Structure formats: structure tokens, C-alpha cells
């Protein structure tokens, strides 16, 4: 009985500690907002979701875009080459664009119609976790 209780308590403590550590690890990324210089001269849309990425972990962001508006999509990380993004049609899952191995880390994009697209943020680094953020900006004067 004592053994069971001790085992249970040990398991409970371990689980709690793991959960809290997970929380701290995720939230560490919030301290690393990274710069938005790649967005200039576009205006930032005001939302960031810093996240931790690794080879198995992808972040998907559903972004709504307006017809006729020009946007810049730019990922940022401690090491820029560590991350890339993919533009996906969420309905058909068609890959529309990948920034992997592209000359520019960011993409300037216009839309013939307003729509929602999925932007997947991915890591190139197989060896370690990286903090990354997706930035979306728009051109104010068109």
C-alpha cells in the first residue's frame, strides 16, 4: 500500500514537474520576439505567435488575406536559415509555395481574391529546437 502511494506520488510529482517545465520551455520563446526588419516597408499586422520548432514539429497559422492587398510573409528565428515556411491551400492541401532553399527568406504576395491560406512554419535543424515567429505585413500605400 505504502509502495503504491509512494509510486503514485512520485509519478504525480514527475508529471507535474514535466508539465511545468513544458510550460516554461514553450514560454521561453516569448522572450525571443526576433526583429521585424524583414517586414519593412510593410506594416506589421500586429500579431505574433512565437513557437518552438524541431524537425517533427510544425506550426500552422491560418491567415486571412484581402483582395488586391500586397503582403510580406517572413519567418524569423535566432538563426534565419534554421526556419522556412510553406503556403498551403487549407481546403485542398495543395502546396502553393515553399521558402525552403529560396534566395529570399521572405515572400511578397498579392491576392486576386480575399481568402484564407495556411502558413506552415518549419525547421531545417534536425539537431535542436529553435524558437521561431511568423510575421505578416501589408503595404499601407497602394
Amino acid at each position, binding site marked *: 500500500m505504502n509502495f503504491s502511494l509512494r509510486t503514485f506520488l512520485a509519478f504525480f510529482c514527475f508529471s507535474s514537474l514535466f508539465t511545468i517545465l513544458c510550460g516554461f520551455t514553450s514560454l521561453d520563446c516569448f522572450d525571443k520576439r526576433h526583429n521585424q526588419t524583414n517586414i519593412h516597408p510593410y506594416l506589421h499586422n500586429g500579431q505574433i505567435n512565437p513557437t518552438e520548432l524541431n524537425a517533427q514539429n510544425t506550426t*500552422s497559422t491560418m491567415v486571412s488575406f484581402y483582395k488586391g492587398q500586397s503582403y510580406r510573409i517572413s519567418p524569423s528565428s535566432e538563426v534565419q536559415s534554421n526556419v522556412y515556411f510553406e503556403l498551403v491551400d487549407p481546403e485542398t492541401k495543395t502546396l502553393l509555395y515553399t521558402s525552403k532553399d529560396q534566395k529570399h527568406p521572405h515572400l511578397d504576395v498579392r491576392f486576386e481574391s480575399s481568402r484564407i491560406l495556411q502558413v506552415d512554419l518549419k525547421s531545417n535543424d534536425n539537431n535542436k529546437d529553435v524558437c521561431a515567429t511568423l510575421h505578416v505585413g501589408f503595404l499601407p500605400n497602394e
Partner: protein
Amino acid sequence: MYSKLKNKVLYCVFLCMCACESTETQPVTIHDTSLRTDGDVQALKNFFYMIPSPMETSILIKKTGVDYHYDFLNAPDNYKHYQTTNQKAINLGVYCADLCYATLFDQQQDLRFYISSAKKLAEDLGVMDAFDSQMIDRVEYNLEERDSMLKIVSEIYWIADAHLKESENATVSSLMMYGGFIETLYLASNLYSLDKSNQALAQVIADQVYALYNLNALLKKTSEIDPKTQQTVEHTHELLEIYRSFKTQSENPEAVVLDSSNQLLIKGENQIQMTQSDFMALFEKIVAIRDNIVS
């Protein structure tokens, strides 16, 4: 300390729920956001939702040729009536939207009022960074430079959102976006009611369904953490129901590289037509929701 740890654990649970739940079916262009398979690996994903900032939508509204109407905005001294954290968060978004509108029309006096009201709510919410003395100095110095002001006001919104998420207060951030969205749609609808021949503005209003879809999904996640925000889910759901009656026609997107400068054009028509009866139903609902949140 305990509260901080609790917040971190709740946030962790929130992220897990974002990762695990697939989004339900909806009309227009989005039907399924289930996970996409890369090779043999089914990636573990975190889902986020981004909606256009009030500045972005206000710029589109201004482009349709509308005028400035102060009487449609929330009175700057109404901030005194907002007692709860959720009321303050929603109305911080409302004031940010009004601030964007006043900035675009070079209404310097109104801009000062809205900065002041937003600052008071932000202070109560612990988002002082967005309205620190350096930022206020920049506002005063650049008041007559519209392009600089657009940048500064966008930055205020960005800093407020980043600060809220950094301090594990994603609920307040979501509510701020909700307030900003409702105020901007309310403003656009009122302006359209003055001139129903403005087809460009009708299109901007119809196109809000995409932002609304993302906002509704975001608020659903938020309400799982804070059930007190459930009303925002109901409001956005009611608006979505009205948008579902609009006539729509959609084509799949196709990406075309425009030139060597890495610019892409996403082709494919997504037509949403808003009839006058569609608009009246939407107008009635948005007025009721907006009156409810600013009163």
C-alpha cells in the same frame, strides 16, 4: 508565484488543445484544416489564427472613398464604464480600431483622445509597454506625418499583443482582437448605410467573413480557457450564420510567380455577393453586438 505557475500550466494546456483539435467544417473556402502528411511523418502541429489588424481593414475602408464620421466611434470617455478585465480588453480593441480610423483621416485631436483612452485601459490591463512615454513622445512628434503615424499606431497594436502573449495573457489578446474586429465592421457597416451605392465598401464588408472565420476559431480556443468569454464565441457565430446566407462562388487558389523579385500572385476567384437584405441582417446584428460591448 503560484498564480504564475498556474498560468503557465494553463497556457501549456491551451497550446496542447490548439495542437490536437482539428477545425470543424465551414462554408466559403475553408472546409477542413486537418493535418497534412509530409512523407511518412504525420507532423505534430500547433494551430494559430491571424486576423487582419484594425489598421489593415481601416485602410481598405478608406480606399473606398468614405468620409470621416466621429459620431460612429465609441466616446473616448466611455473607458470609465469598463470594470472587468474582459470589458477592458474588448474595449481596448475598440479604441485601437477608432484610433486607426482617426489616424487615417488625420484627425489629430480625436487621435489624442483615443490614445489617452486606450492608454488608460492598457495600463489597467498591464500593457504599459505599448503606451510608454517614449511612444507617446513619438505620437506627439509625428502627429502631422500620417505615414509615420500609421507605423506608430500599428506598432502600438503589435506591442500590446506581443506583451499580452509574453505575459501569458492570450485571453486578453484574443478579446482585444475581437473588440477591434467588431468596431471595424460596425464602422464599415455604418458608413455603407450612408451610401449603399459604394460597391467597393460592400465588398470589404462581405470579405470580412474570412477574418471572422479565423476570429471565431480563435475565440473558441480562448473560451476553453476562460468560459467567461463564451459570449464572444456566440456573437461571432451569429455573424457567421448571417454570412452563410450570402451567395458565394469560389475557385481553388493557384500561385503564379510575377517576376524575378520573388513576388507571387495568388489567382482564383472567390466571389461573395451581399444583397441589401443580407446587409440589413448583418447591420442589425453588428449594431446589437457593438452596443452590447461598448455600453
